[in-house]
């Protein structure tokens, strides 16, 4: 007896929420039936600093798009959920997008964990899914309906090692975050490092929420023969590593990853960031790009809109979401249809799309379509970015 009350209450709560969310959605439906695009990002939780700019970008993009008349003459409705970084919740929301909201496409998945949890849902439902997470496992082996926009860690490693090799560094120290990003990048780097004749003398770790890395850095400091240090990681960890690095008076060149390619890293690390090198997409140095750079226009446009609307500097992660959504929208336009299968086919045939992250050319074998040339190697000098090399 007693739970029939609560049981029914629970059911009603779900039904009510669904009703409210649909009514909210339909409130900005124009004349025609909207094109529903789904998204699940980690706007809260430990990956919020990634998910938050992603969510903001997606919302802004759809707003702008609707202002310009929408897609295929229909308005676009973004159904956006926050998984809090929890893979189980992500899967539930993915099911909700497919079963309840009936979206025709999906752009989201902030972390590799949440993306991997959602993949089966979209594969089963045959709905195209562009992930915003880094790991190479997402697109290798190729899954029919799964794509992604961020560079893989492997390309970042290659970009860094190319530079090290050019500068003649052969013995390095490594300190990686134990979060998904850091671990995955560390593994990828160790896989390709041999190709550049570089060896790792010290291989250290730190936890995602650690607030002091001097013990680990001290080991690196005390190891003879190290010529440079690489720090695969994202979030606040690398900023603390950079500060501790300066505190300990280590003067070896420090390489960070694309995981901290944002203005906020420079702000957090302060003067200690001077001299740090990292691979980053063109987005970060929008105003420093050559006038004839093919990415200049799109990068400037996104940067202007985002910074005006949010008052915060652009980050690489928001850029991933921008490219993801833009790729999807272009695919829908090309397909001239909202049939998921046709969108998928158009997506796979993306050729020479100029995005803020890089220039994408996808194929049946490559659901990412970015090379190392999409990265620029940047040096931080006086709190600002300097493009090194080409």
């Amino acid at each position: 007896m007693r739970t029939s009350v609560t049981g029914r209450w629970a059911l009603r709560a779900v039904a009510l929420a669904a009703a409210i969310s649909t009514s909210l959605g339909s409130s900005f439906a124009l004349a025609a039936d909207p094109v529903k695009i789904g998204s699940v990002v980690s706007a809260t939780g430990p990956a919020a600093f990634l998910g938050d700019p992603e969510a903001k970008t997606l919302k802004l993009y759809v707003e702008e798009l609707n202002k310009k008349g929408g897609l295929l003459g229909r308005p676009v409705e973004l159904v956006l959920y926050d998984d809090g970084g929890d893979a189980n919740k992500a899967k539930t929301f993915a099911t909700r997008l497919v079963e309840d909201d009936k979206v025709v496409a999906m752009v989201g998945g902030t972390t590799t964990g949440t993306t991997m949890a959602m993949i089966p849902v979209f594969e089963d439902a045959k709905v195209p899914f562009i992930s915003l997470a880094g790991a190479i496992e997402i697109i290798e082996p190729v899954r029919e309906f799964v794509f992604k926009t961020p560079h893989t860690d492997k390309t970042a490693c290659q970009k860094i090692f190319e530079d090290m090799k050019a500068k003649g560094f052969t013995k390095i120290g490594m300190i990686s975050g134990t979060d998904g990003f850091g671990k995955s990048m560390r593994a990828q780097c160790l896989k390709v490092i041999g190709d550049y004749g570089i060896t790792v003398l010290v291989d250290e770790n730190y936890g995602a929420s650690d607030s002091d890395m001097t013990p680990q850095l001290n080991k690196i400091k005390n190891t003879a023969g190290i010529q440079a240090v690489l720090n695969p990681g994202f979030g606040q960890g690398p900023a603390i590593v950079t500060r501790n690095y300066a505190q300990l008076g280590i003067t070896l060149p420090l390489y960070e990853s694309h995981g901290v390619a944002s203005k906020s890293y420079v702000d957090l690390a302060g003067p200690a960031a001077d001299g740090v090198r990292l691979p980053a997409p063109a987005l970060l140095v929008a105003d420093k790009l050559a006038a004839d750079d093919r990415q200049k226009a799109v990068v400037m446009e996104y940067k202007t809109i985002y910074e005006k609307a949010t008052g915060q500097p652009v980050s690489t992660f928001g850029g991933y979401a921008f490219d993801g959504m833009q790729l999807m929208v272009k695919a829908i336009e090309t397909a001239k249809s909202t049939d998921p299968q046709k969108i998928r086919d158009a997506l796979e045939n993306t050729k020479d799309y100029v995005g803020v992250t890089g220039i994408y050319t996808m194929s049946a074998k490559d659901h990412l379509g970015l090379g190392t040339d999409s990265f620029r190697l940047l040096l931080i000098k006086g709190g600002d970015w300097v493009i090194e090399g080409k």
Partner: protein
Amino acid sequence: MAAKLLNSRLATLVFLAIIIGVIPYLAPSAFYLRVAAVVWVFALAALGLTVLMGYAGQVSLGHAGFLGIGGYAVAIGPAQFGLHPALCLLIGAVIAGVLAFLVGRPILKLKGYYLAIATLGFGVILSLVFHSESQWTGGPDGMQVARVTLFGWRLSGSANWYWVTGGALLIGAWLALNIGASPTGRALKALHDSEVAAAGSGIDVSAKKLAAFVIGAVYAAVAGGLLAAMNGLITPDAAGFMHSIELVAMVIIGGLGSVLGAVVGAAFLVVLPQALTFMHDYEQAVLGFLIMAFMIFLPAGIVPTVRKWLLERLS
């Protein structure tokens, strides 16, 4: 008469069975089945805490660690050793039980908040292992679980998993109710109130606590195995501190020591985030507010309060 019905084991089971049986006919889409299946799985894990915390009064803030053991058993067994997932579910339960047996004896000597911090530490250590031993567990991004085939029938889709998890919950609830009404359950509830008096009645207090700890671990491991198999993925977060807290919150909000309470509490914490999506940025704040409000106004938990209210109305 009404009181008897409200307190009867059979009535609870029948009631739960009806709920599980009826939902698929009311659910507008498979999404609702997915949400319900998640509720059933977490309710099953929470039932372990009903035995440990509700009956025996022993707090565990590391219970999700056992959930992780079950999950990773189902992930690692088929991938590394080619074992059948169903067998791995069993193996996971056994490993969790044996581990609980080994660490339980020293840990359960502690009382109150000291027990809380010790179990918390144990859970943190377990989740660090899942996090760090990448060659086995796939590291922080988790590990994929092969799809389950049972008697040639490929288990996938929300509807199938709904019935599997619902069935598992019913069995779990039945066992928990049995324990509650048995001499063992009486002994557990007795040592909850007074360990001295329980020992004075000839109850081997540490052995009974250990039994409750092992039972709780097995529940969590089975739930973890089902969760991993259902999601096709297990991540170290599933074994993390926040999930341990969540499990404890489920039994407390639902009503400590009540089998239905565990189910209601699990429903509360699983359904609420789904129901609050329209709040957007305020989702978390509202969730926290509701937890506070429920505990302030229903400190005994939802089910015991409703039960009391019903009993007063009926008599």
